[in-house]
């Protein structure tokens, strides 16, 4: 099985699909880190380095897209969704241009660079922009498929990738579709709805819960927007308790999206597992994740809470 950082899968996918699709890729002096360098080496004439100027890059991408091109703009999540938020909203979102934002180094797993670089707010920000598709792949296989889906989708897409190498958890023939969630393991007592690198942890947590005679379903929601409400409501009704899990703030991300969906149609207790209302800190990626309880044990705890709230 493959083990690689989803940013690596991103760079490789750009280089792979550029054979068939006429892609342009922009970066802001981070091509080594975002892995767009893999594309740049193969297609230097379609790679444009914008320097350390993310806001300008985003609006330049909008201009290229307004001239009929399919454009990827890349930087760290912090500087793309964060620093350039208003440019994303007004230059890309409002005119609904065909720009794909390839955001790497999302979440706490950035590790040593610390809080200034650990973006736990990007899903919340991007999700509020009308017409923006928000994808957060769970493993290298899905990362590659998400890039392909983004290319084939006409309109703005935000893609979220990580710095830390992670295990492949999905089969090689996995089917990815924007707007669709996937049940990776079925269960009846509780459903763990996870995204990004927490999906792998959720699968481990479900095994640990078997030992405690708790039957937990695990659902991968890589398409945070549009959200597979139908699937979520089905499990809200069937299990009567949900736990969401994400490497992102519990405010505004997947947890909030799921709460919004169930509260309007099929309310049940929802416990949000993620980064509490606090900043990250420096440390080796895995140590930081463990410190913030973003691991299988952390999910198990939240599941026990959720189950105890069931009527």
């Amino acid at each position, binding site marked *: 099985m493959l083990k690689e950082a989803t940013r690596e899968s991103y760079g490789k996918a750009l280089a792979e699909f550029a054979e068939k699709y006429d892609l342009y890729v922009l*970066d802001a*002096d*981070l*091509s*080594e*880190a975002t892995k767009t360098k893999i594309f740049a080496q193969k297609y230097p004439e379609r790679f444009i*380095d*914008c*320097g*350390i*100027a993310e*806001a*300008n890059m985003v609006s330049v991408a909008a201009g290229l897209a307004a001239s009929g091109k399919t454009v990827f703009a890349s930087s760290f999540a*912090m*500087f793309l969704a964060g*620093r350039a938020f208003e440019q994303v909203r007004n230059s890309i979102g409002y005119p609904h241009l065909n720009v794909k934002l390839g955001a790497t180094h999302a979440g706490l797993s950035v*590790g*040593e*660079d*610390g*809080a*200034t*670089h650990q973006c736990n707010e990007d899903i919340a920000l991007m999700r509020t922009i009308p017409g923006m598709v928000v994808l957060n792949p769970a493993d290298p296989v899905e990362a590659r498929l998400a890039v392909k889906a983004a290319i084939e989708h006409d309109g703005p897409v935000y893609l979220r990738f990580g710095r830390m190498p992670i295990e492949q958890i999905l089969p090689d023939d996995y089917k990815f579709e924007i707007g669709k969630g996937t049940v990776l393991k079925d269960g009846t007592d509780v459903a763990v709805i996870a995204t990004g690198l927490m999906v792998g942890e959720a699968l481990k947590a479900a095994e640990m819960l078997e030992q405690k005679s708790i039957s937990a379903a695990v659902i991968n929601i890589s398409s945070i927007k549009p959200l597979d409400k139908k699937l979520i409501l089905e499990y809200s009704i069937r299990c009567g308790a949900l736990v969401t899990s994400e490497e992102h703030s519990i405010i505004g991300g997947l947890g909030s999206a799921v709460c919004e969906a169930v509260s309007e149609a099929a309310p049940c207790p929802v416990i949000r597992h993620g980064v509490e209302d606090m900043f990250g*800190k*420096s*440390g*080796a990626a895995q*140590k*930081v994740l463990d*410190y913030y309880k973003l691991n299988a044990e952390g999910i198990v705890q939240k599941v026990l809470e959720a189950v105890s709230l069931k009527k």
Partner: protein
Amino acid sequence: MEEIQKNELKNIALRIRRDIIEQVYNAKSGHPGGSLSIADIITYLYFKEMNIDPSNPKDPDRDRLVLSKGHSCPALYAALAERGYFSTEILKTFRKLDSFLQGHPDMKNTPGVDMSSGSLGQGISAACGIALAGKLDKKNYRVYAILGDGEIEEGQVWEAFMFASHYCLSNLCVIIDRNGLQIDGKCKDVMSSEPLEDKMQAFGFDVKVIDAHDFDDIESAFNTAKNTTDRPTAIIANSVKGKGVSFMENVVSWHGTAPNEQQYEQAMSELKEVR
């Protein structure tokens, strides 16, 4: 500058360079290149220029330094430790879980750090705010801001430069560490900001171009800056990224890479005391 004093500063700068290598080596991550290029200027600021008291790091009358190119904090942490803000032992914890020496400067928790930074382009604006507060409060402190030559590609930097001269922030001294490199390559290939002297002049700064590794040059630029009362100063410091460690000098890949054991040994052996 007298030879004795120059040698003293050179030796401090060497210690700071060794501390930089130690930190990045221990952390197995961090940014040696841009830390080494500012080591001499940081040394001069903390050991000669700035009006500071390590036993009173929050003194409202102190001079301030904003490391706008925050990734170069190993140089800042080394200077703070060598100057006595905290023990040099703590440098070993750099970038480790629960250390106050974060991957990028954290003013909340690190004694002597005047402004948090790490997202390029924001520190210079904060420095303008600190300088403006000094003027509003009729205080005599000075504010120093160190920027990278890649960092100045951020539009916000030029908004700040415009602000500094519009509000006549003569208490602000901007230092641009012109080492010619960023991450994706040479600045002139990635995104050129030249001619920089002309741009800074046009933005209303008093401009000095110096050799960033020559203490006489550094001293005379800072002295002129202190006597400039009608505008902010910009010191364009021509530097060598990785300065002092032969195999790191002018090599772009040493921007954000830690040395392995053998490279560490070699670097340390090159950074020996001068007499």
